Each structure stands twice: as C-alpha cells, then as structure tokens.
C-alpha cells in the first residue's frame, strides 16, 4: 500500500439502492494518481451507476473520498445530439473561457474542419473526440469515460485510446474508463475493477489474461471480498 497522498480516489463500503433494487453492494477500492482504471462487468453490473455516484449525481451509502483539488471531466456513454442544431463550437463554448481551437487540437481534430459542423453529423469517432475535448476543456485532472467506443467504428477505436494515453502522460491525468474490450483493458489501463453489483476482482490489468480471473469476471456472480484481500 502506498502513501495516502498517492491516491486520488478512495471508495469504501459503497452501496446504492434504487427502487428497492441493489445496484451497488459494498464496493471498495483505491486508485493511484496518474493511473488508468478499467471498469468491466456484464450489463446492469452497476458500472455507469458507479460513475454517477463518483460524480455525486445519486444518493448512496458508504464513502467516496476524492483527493484535494480534484477536477473531474466526464464523458458520458450517450448524448442526444441527432435532433439538436448545435455546432461543435457551440457545444465547447458551453464551458466558460474556452478556446475552441486549442480544445480541439489535443484530440487531433482540426478547428477548420469540425468547429462549425453540427454534432449530429459527426462520425462516432469524431463525436467521442469532441466529448473528450469538452471534458478536457477546463483542465481536469481526473477523467471519467463511459464506454469510450460506443458508436465508434473499429478503425477509430485505437486512435482514441492512443490520444487518451498521450494526454494522460502529458498532463498526469487519472482516467477511469468503463469498457467491454479486453484488448483495451490490457493495452491502455493499469488497474482493473470487475463489477457485478459488488467487486468481483480488483488488481492489475494484465491479470485479465489469466483464465481463472476471466472466469470470475465473466462467469457466475461471485463477489471476491474486499480489495485488501485481493491485492
């Protein structure tokens, strides 16, 4: 275990119930500053709800402790843009004091090509990049990224993660990402949190290649206990 200052997030005994249904059950984990945590699990495992808890959008029991001076950028899984005549520039300017050109360049989008385009006409990959640009626009040091490859064609997936990795190294950003992709977990994350309402595994991401760990993650719902017992 490292010094407490090394950790950007500590979650202890977190539980969440909605309409008498248990969504998250006694979830605990710690995350080191400047690392990437991949969150995996079957559908309805509570992954997106965990993000909502971390963003303080829903009431919960237990403890969620962010380090001091944490500024969070959030990239949701779905946004409704098809029917709204809103340009990329409009969207980025929803945040205060944002320079559109310098917001788009880190995510490898050209101001000239996309700034005046309507969000609804962008490709899946471009839209994801715009969302990352939005999340990064006010210089966060933590990025929550829900299903980064939703609506993105296969060829556009990898460049998004390469960009994220570059940004992480350059700006020491801590990233939490929800994904179903084993390749992404292995290549682009440091730690792995497997959820199925409770934590079924928490440890280093390379462990995802271990067949016995895969059985725990993708097999029956068996909670493996507290993180301290597993790491």
């Amino acid at each position, binding site marked *: 275990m490292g010094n407490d200052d090394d950790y950007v997030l500590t979650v202890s005994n977190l539980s969440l119930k909605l309409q008498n249904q248990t969504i998250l059950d006694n979830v605990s984990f710690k995350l080191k500053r400047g690392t990437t945590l991949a969150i995996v699990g079957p559908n309805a495992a509570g992954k997106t709800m965990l993000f909502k808890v971390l*963003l303080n959008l829903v009431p919960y029991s237990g403890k969620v402790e962010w380090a001091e001076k944490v500024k969070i950028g*959030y990239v949701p899984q*779905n*946004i*409704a843009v098809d029917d709204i*005549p*809103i340009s990329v520039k409009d969207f980025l300017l*929803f945040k205060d004091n944002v320079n559109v050109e310098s917001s788009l360049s880190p995510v490898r989008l050209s101001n000239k090509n996309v700034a*005046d385009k309507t969000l609804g006409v962008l490709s899946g990959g471009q839209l994801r990049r715009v969302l990352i640009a939005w999340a990064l626009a006010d210089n966060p040091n933590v990025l929550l990224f829900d299903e980064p490859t939703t609506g993105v064609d296969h060829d556009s997936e990898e460049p998004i993660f390469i960009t994220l990795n570059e940004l992480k190294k350059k700006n020491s950003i801590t990233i939490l990402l929800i994904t179903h992709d084993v390749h992404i977990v292995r290549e682009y994350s440091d730690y792995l949190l497997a959820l199925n309402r409770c934590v079924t595994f928490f440890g280093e991401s390379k462990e995802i290649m271990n067949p016995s760990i895969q059985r725990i993650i993708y097999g029956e719902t068996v909670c493996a206990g507290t993180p301290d017992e597993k790491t």
Partner: protein
Amino acid sequence: MTETLILSLLTGIFVGISAGYLGSLMVLEKMALVGDALSHVALPGLALGILFNFPWFLGAFAFLFTSAVIIWYLGRVTKLSYETIVGAMFTLALAVGILIIPQTELLEALFGDITKVTILETATAVVISVIAVILTKLIYKKLVLGMISEELAISKGIDVSKTNLIYLLLVSLVVAIGIRIVGTLLVGFLVIVPAAAAKNVSSDLFKYAVLSASFGAVSACSGVLFSSYLNSPTGPFVVFSGIVVFAVTIFAKWKTK
C-alpha cells in the same frame, strides 16, 4: 394605419418573437405537443375572467402557471413524460372551460381577436415578451445541455429540474399573452411552427434561436396584416403565414441536400 392596427402589429411582433424564441427549446425538447396542449389549459381561466370581469390574461396565466407547476411536479415524482401529463390535464381543462365560458365569447376565446387589443394589453405583451426572452436567454444553454445529457448538465452544477420549472413558467407567460392574438386553440402554433421552420435551415444554436424568433414575428405580423385587410379573424391567418414560412424552409432544406 389605424391605432388598433398599430397596437395589433406591436403585440403580434413581440408575442411572435417571444413565442418563437421559447418555442425553439420546446421543439428541441420534443415537447412540441406540450406547448400546444398547455395552451388549452388556459381556457377555464379565460372563462373566469370573462364571467367575473377581470383581465383574460390574468385568468389564463393563473391556470397556466398552476398547471406548469403541477406538470413539473408530477413529472419529477411519477417520471411520466410531460406530454402524457399535459395530455391528461388539457382535456380536463378544455371540458371545464367549454362548460363555463359564455357561448357568445367561445369563438373569440378559441381563436382570438386581436382587433380588440387595448394599449394596456399591448404594453403588457411587450413587457412580458421582453422579460421572457431575457430570462430564457439566461437559461438557454443550461436547458440545451440538459437535453443533450442530463448527467453532463448536473455534473457541471446545473440544477436541471429547477431550470425546467423556470422555463415552463416562462412558456406559461408567453402562451397567456399569445392567446389574445390567436386564441387558445391556435397559440400552440406560434410556439411550435416557427421553431420547426428554423430547425429546417439551422446548423448552429444562435442561428436557430434567432430564426425561430424572426419566423414567429413574421408569422404573427403578416397574419395581423392579412386579417386586417380582409376583415377576418387573426388566428387562421397567423397559421397560414407560418405554414408558408415552414414550407419555404422545407424547400430550402431540400435544395441544400
């Protein structure tokens, strides 16, 4: 140009602008039918105003305001869509309104009569329109962000629920003044069609909002002029003018494809 026509045009322009501007959000929120149905809720208030001899506007607004709060509250508590709740409320209000309104006034209440507008009513319409547009401008981005993603809006510190309530109240105000021009049956048109026309030809929010307000003003204004020239009720001519604008934008959209 007569004094009545000047007052009618002034009222039309300002109500058209405010209804178009606020309607731009209603169309984006896919609440177009809410705007339409909400206007019918005003009928009992209007009827009470006629029966007890107090200004129509106050009666209409009191009912719209109360309904907006009830709709907002039920939406939060039941998670039913605004359209469903308004759908239930407007039929009840229409039934009650038609029962209690004097038959001689029914046609005017349903279709409006701007030729009877007074200086006080015009001044009220101008002031309320300006206030509604300014307040809506202040919350416009927040409302749009809430439509794009409620989580994104909340994570940015926006109280989506409170912002929606303020917006519904502003819509109630604008609908209440719009009733004078086109009546309870057609006021929904001023909220929906200018915005729908603007959406056909807009690629960014600013253009969309400005066009929506402009189309509202053009529809109301030309409706007033035609009805005055032909000595006919205003409401239907406002609708005809707006539909022409809408058709032109459909054509423009088709041409640019």
